[in-house]
């Protein structure tokens, strides 16, 4: 009856999980930068040909870029999209923004957080401290202004943000949808509370007792579907399981930078083929060697 999801068993196939995301949906992406990104869900969205998505989030990388490369995105309302100083600008994001193929409605971590909090607390607006004086406001005609009844000061007011779905990958979860994450949680707790539903993948499904011992970070009642997909965050990291796959990311960026046939090849080999073949292609086991020694860990980043 409420917005909570009370079914006792949320396990479903990856295809059925992603079928909960409709064309044009406002989609929050869990994780951040190149860690714990919901990549298996992203790939399945592409396989299902989803279109016109409105992405919201903080700082992201290949999740956003790949969706854009595949033509699934209409609006990108993230605070950052890129590969930092390591691999640089996000090629598909950059090209689509420069060509006007997407609306790059850049937002700010704090503003998005505040908008999620408005949705969580059921209030129709919240004030933010900053933004005034910057050009970010020009990208957001939906922002308003409000005068503090105590100080008389004018502040930027932002509307609630309640994504249709939050896509979250977790290392561990149970069939009810309880998810364990390691820190940093980034915005995932806020997404889970503010969104209509969480659609989750986990590297491993386990019993409730094991997940509770590890610590439930996203509770079952926020989660509509959960699917076990080993290496479901690859090529981003999902510690303690696996580190960031730098060579794979470089391969993607080369393909996405070239576009055309090279990009099509990447999509065919790593997306269209499905998750089972994907896992065979990526040689992901070596990414678990990070825990063997500091040298082994460093080696993964050379």
């Amino acid at each position: 009856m409420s917005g909570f999801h009370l079914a006792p068993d949320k396990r479903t196939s990856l295809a059925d999980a992603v079928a909960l995301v409709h064309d044009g949906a406002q989609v929050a992406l869990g994780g951040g930068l190149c860690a714990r990104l919901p990549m298996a869900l992203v790939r399945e969205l592409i396989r299902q040909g989803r279109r016109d998505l409105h992405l919201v989030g903080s700082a992201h990388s290949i999740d956003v870029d790949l969706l854009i490369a595949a033509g699934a995105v209409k609006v990108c309302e993230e605070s950052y999209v890129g590969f930092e100083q390591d691999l640089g600008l996000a090629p598909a994001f950059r090209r689509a923004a420069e060509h006007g193929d997407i609306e790059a409605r850049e937002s700010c971590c704090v503003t998005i957080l505040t908008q999620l909090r408005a949705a969580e607390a059921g209030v129709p607006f919240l004030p933010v401290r900053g933004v005034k004086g910057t050009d970010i406001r020009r990208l957001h005609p939906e922002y308003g202004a409000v005068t503090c009844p105590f100080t008389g000061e004018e502040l930027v007011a932002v509307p609630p943000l309640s994504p249709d779905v939050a896509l979250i990958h977790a290392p561990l979860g149970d069939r009810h949808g309880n998810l364990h994450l390691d820190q940093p949680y980034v915005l995932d707790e806020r997404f889970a509370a503010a969104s209509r539903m969480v659609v989750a993948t986990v590297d491993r499904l386990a019993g409730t007792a094991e997940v509770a011992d590890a610590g439930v970070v996203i509770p079952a009642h926020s989660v509509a579907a959960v699917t076990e997909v080993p290496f479901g965050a690859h090529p981003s990291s999902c510690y303690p399981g696996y580190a960031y796959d730098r060579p794979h990311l470089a391969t993607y960026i080369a393909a996405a930078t070239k576009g055309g046939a090279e990009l099509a090849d990447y999509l065919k080999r790593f997306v269209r083929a499905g998750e089972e073949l994907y896992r065979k292609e990526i040689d992901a086991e070596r990414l678990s060697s990070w825990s063997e020694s500091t040298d082994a860990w460093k080696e993964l980043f050379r």
Partner: protein
Amino acid sequence: MTRASAPSESWTLDEWFVVALARTIRDREVVFHGFGSPCAQVAMHVARQTHAREMMLIEGATYAVNPDPVFVPPTSNDLALHQDATYRMRFEEFFDAAARGAVDRMFLSGGQIDAYGNTNVTAIGDPTKPKVKLGGGGGGCNISATIRTLTLWTTRHRSGRTLVQDVDFLTDLGHRSREGTRAELGYTGRGPDWMLTELGLFDFEADGHARLRALFPDVQAEDVEKSTGFELRVALDRSLLHEPSGSELAAVRHLDPLGVRRAEFAPAELERTFAHQHGPACAC
């Protein structure tokens, strides 16, 4: 990505740059860097291991408090940076602290920076149809307003396209924007106090305008002049860029064995080497 480091009687520009950034931190400050900023990231850890042992260091994308990294990896949200941390802030906990003024210093860079320290990390050209779409500002458009002090840096001064008369898009606030000064906007953060480039060091005058205070010894004032798009105010004091100490260099090399900091520099800048002497070093 790796490269043998120079021995400690000599050092490279990237090493000195990181040390000079570290020196903008005062002890007992609460300091934060964003993601994608390895020079600032390494600098913060160098400061905490040398002159600012009681600073509070908040690691860029993990919000870990005073971690001791295993090594600095090339991506900011990585366990190698915070595996041993006693406490990690939540996302909202950090940004709230920054917004209420509990953070003393943040490091900020930009694809463009103007004379008032406003930075553009959003887009070059018309932002609605950009010539170059940059990555974006993270949390800067709020917290640049409220964090007490900012250290700006760029490693691309020499390009001539970075220090500009007007930013195409104002992502993060310096000392004043078209809408007014910080005081007029109601912000308690004081804006940037230092700006380091691969050519030299700037501070900011009372009107919020940048002023060149020191040059790296292999740089001439004319190099800066021709690379700077805004009016160049100058008041040199060579001691503001004094040579790195052995312990500072050791800290840089220990913390960043992969040389992640180097990714910020154009290849030619990485050839710049210095030794214990005054005046320009040879570019051998």
